[in-house]
């Protein structure tokens, strides 16, 4: 049976090669889309590590740089608003562009995203400590900069060892700064849901005497606060000085526009890929259907010689299956090249391999779907009718 199918496929090699080419390209297109989808999905499933609900960001714009005093007054004014649950300082803030730097830690050297954080940040963003502690004001007295890192950082640098109290530096040895780990948090994906769960470093920001990065506060307010509260806060800040103007952005709004900008291209790409596959399904069915109608004589002869309906059905399905296997073999060889030469370094190996497996499965399924109707037509051919077709 299999030898028979192979012979038939081989005899029509020129036509079948084109079909195989179509399947190979479909596989590669599907693989590309699958990698994007799975990568984003896996990232999305990783916990965010902070709570964005009811968190607002206040940026204080001022003319010139000499307004540290006003900053103090703004802070005090904010503390008087009863609707504000807690006030924290951080820079940059979630859903805005993050910073990153290369660190060398415990012999390993890698890139980590970082932000400056005050001792008051933890309750505002609802950060959960896994090990050690969060910053306290007494950390300002230390020579080394106190840092809190996330679990990915720990895994990358220390494996299972206890990281508390360990010291690391920047990869650029010209800058002599030392960081001491005082605590570990779980994930912290400052750039948002779809970003990779990268190593992360919170650096302690001394509040006094060195000025914190001016102009940024992050506050947690009572649930269901309206624009009226925003206006109230802005109006409380405004009279402090002619030099100062405030702007409030809700993390929820920033998240919404972030998600929109991330999902829209995925959605567009997914729609294009869907229609492409639909086109391939229709196209392959059409080709197979025409091939079957060309082979009425042959199939009639087979039926007359005793082949059952099932045999014919399996034969037509088997032929496309055989071509699809060959196409997938070629497609996988190409896909593995990408893996071997690390063209896809930004994608984890697991995601790549899972994508290959899923895409191969979908392609095999599609080629089966394509052959259902033509095979059914072929199996229905009546031998007597077929033999006097001419």
């Amino acid at each position, binding site marked *: 049976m299999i030898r028979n199918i192979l012979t038939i496929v081989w005899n029509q090699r020129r036509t079948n090669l*084109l079909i195989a080419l*179509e399947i190979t390209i479909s596989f590669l297109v599907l693989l590309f889309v699958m990698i994007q989808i799975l990568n984003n999905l896996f990232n999305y499933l990783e916990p965010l590590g902070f709570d964005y609900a009811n968190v607002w960001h206040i940026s204080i714009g001022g003319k*010139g740089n000499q307004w540290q005093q006003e900053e103090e007054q703004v802070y005090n004014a904010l503390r008087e608003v009863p609707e504000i649950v807690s006030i924290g300082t951080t820079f940059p803030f979630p859903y805005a562009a993050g910073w990153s730097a290369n660190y060398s830690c415990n012999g390993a050297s890698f890139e980590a995203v970082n932000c400056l954080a005050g001792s008051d940040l933890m309750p505002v963003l609802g950060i959960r400590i896994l090990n050690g502690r969060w910053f306290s004001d007494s950390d300002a007295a230390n020579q080394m900069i106190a840092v809190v890192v996330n679990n990915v950082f720990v895994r990358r640098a220390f494996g299972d060892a206890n990281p508390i109290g360990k010291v690391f530096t920047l990869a650029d040895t010209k800058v002599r700064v030392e960081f001491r780990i005082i605590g570990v948090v779980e994930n912290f994906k400052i750039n948002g849901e779809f970003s990779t769960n990268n190593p992360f470093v919170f650096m302690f920001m001394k509040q006094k005497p060195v000025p914190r990065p001016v102009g940024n506060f992050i506050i947690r307010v009572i649930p269901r606060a309206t*624009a*009226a509260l925003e206006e109230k806060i802005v109006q409380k800040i405004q009279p402090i000085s002619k030099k100062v103007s405030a702007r409030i952005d809700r993390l929820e709004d920033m998240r919404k526009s972030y998600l929109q900008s991330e999902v829209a291209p995925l959605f567009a790409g997914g729609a294009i890929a869907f229609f492409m596959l639909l086109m*391939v399904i*229709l196209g392959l069915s*059409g080709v197979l259907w025409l091939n079957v109608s060309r082979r009425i004589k042959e199939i009639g002869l087979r039926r007359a010689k005793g082949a059952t309906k099932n045999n014919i059905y399996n034969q037509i399905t088997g032929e496309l299956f055989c071509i699809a296997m060959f196409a997938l073999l070629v497609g996988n060889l190409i896909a593995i090249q990408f893996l071997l030469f690390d063209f896809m370094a930004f994608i984890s190996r697991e995601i790549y391999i899972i994508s290959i497996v899923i895409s191969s499965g979908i392609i095999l399924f599609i080629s089966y779907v394509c052959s259902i109707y033509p095979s059914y037509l072929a199996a229905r051919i009546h031998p007597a009718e077929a033999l006097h077709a001419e």
Partner: protein
Amino acid sequence: MLKNYIKIAFKVFLRRKFYTFISLFGISFTLTVLIIAVSVFESMVGPVAPEIYADRTLEVNSVRIFRGSNRNGAPPGYDFLDRYLRTLPLIQKASIYSLSFSQPVVYHDGKRLELILKGTDAAYWEIMRYTFIEGSRITEEDDRDANFTCIINEATRQKFFGSEPATGKYIEMKEVRYRVKGVVKNVPRFRQCAFADVWVPLSTVLDKNALKGIHGQCRGIVLAVNKAVIPEIKKEYESRLKNIDKGLLDGWDGAVGVIETTYERFTRNYFHQGFWSNDRAETYTGFIIGTILIFMLLPAVNLINLNVSRIRERSSEIGVRKTFGATTWTLLGQLIVENILFTLIGGVAGFIFSYLVLGIARDSGLIQYAEFTFNFRVFSMGILLTLVFALFSGIYPAWRMARLHPVYALRGEQI
């Protein structure tokens, strides 16, 4: 002869309708995606109102200063642009506009309104040709006297005043009251130079302390006298940066930067390239062509497969034609014309579908004030892509069909 080809072609299309549908589905889908891409691209960087001179407008969006291996890139400041941009040769107009880092949020009737505000000089309104719904533009005097007047877009008028005329009414932003002088049609957010919600005279928002120095919160645009002098203007600008006044640099070693067309800015953002290299436009053009061809590959192979398996159906016709003296070339020509005709039908469907899809995208509000153009350039590009696709997918099957040997063809056999 062509009339005969067309007649035959239609007979063939109608012979197996399901089959024709499959082919048309593939063709129109491919062309829909491509035409959408062309229209979006044209809407983003093409010469479309208000940026009708986009093909000879040059922008300065940032300047980078360096000292050793330290680099610092930011938007240029007013003084720098005033000295080095306004005085460029071979330009018709030069404009400086400001785009502040902190944009105003206004609370109106308990609602929160986020606005994008630009400070503009008079030249800005001559380079950008907005469509005014009411009132008039910012003039030389407005800028000179720092009149607190503003131009708003339709959406902003709707938010503040409903659909009533707004001219003469007041808007308060950042503790300053501005009198509305005119209302213009909305400009899509993706037109970086032209987009804003509110435009005010530049002098009313310029921070006097921040005038000095190379960096600030300004952007520059110049209108070249014609397209041909653009390279000369670029060269002049770059050489001016090389010999920049050390007083502006504030201790830094030097400055680099480019003056670029809208298209170049677009490609620079796309490739995340720094502004010190400006030769990415060609790479990007190659990249676009490559992407189009790769995108066409699967639909083309799909169509080739369908056409090849159709050879049998027409082999007796081809056999007869050949027996009566038609050459391979004549047949090849006929079959290609047939395929072009077929693809053009798909192309028309593609235009209709892309118009519908873009209409949905516009109304979804996903992109602020999005507006997609279907001008002559988009249309001709769409036709060109249709022809490329027709040739891409038609030559191989036509060649195989035309080469059929008459003897075998008449017997209805496959080669």
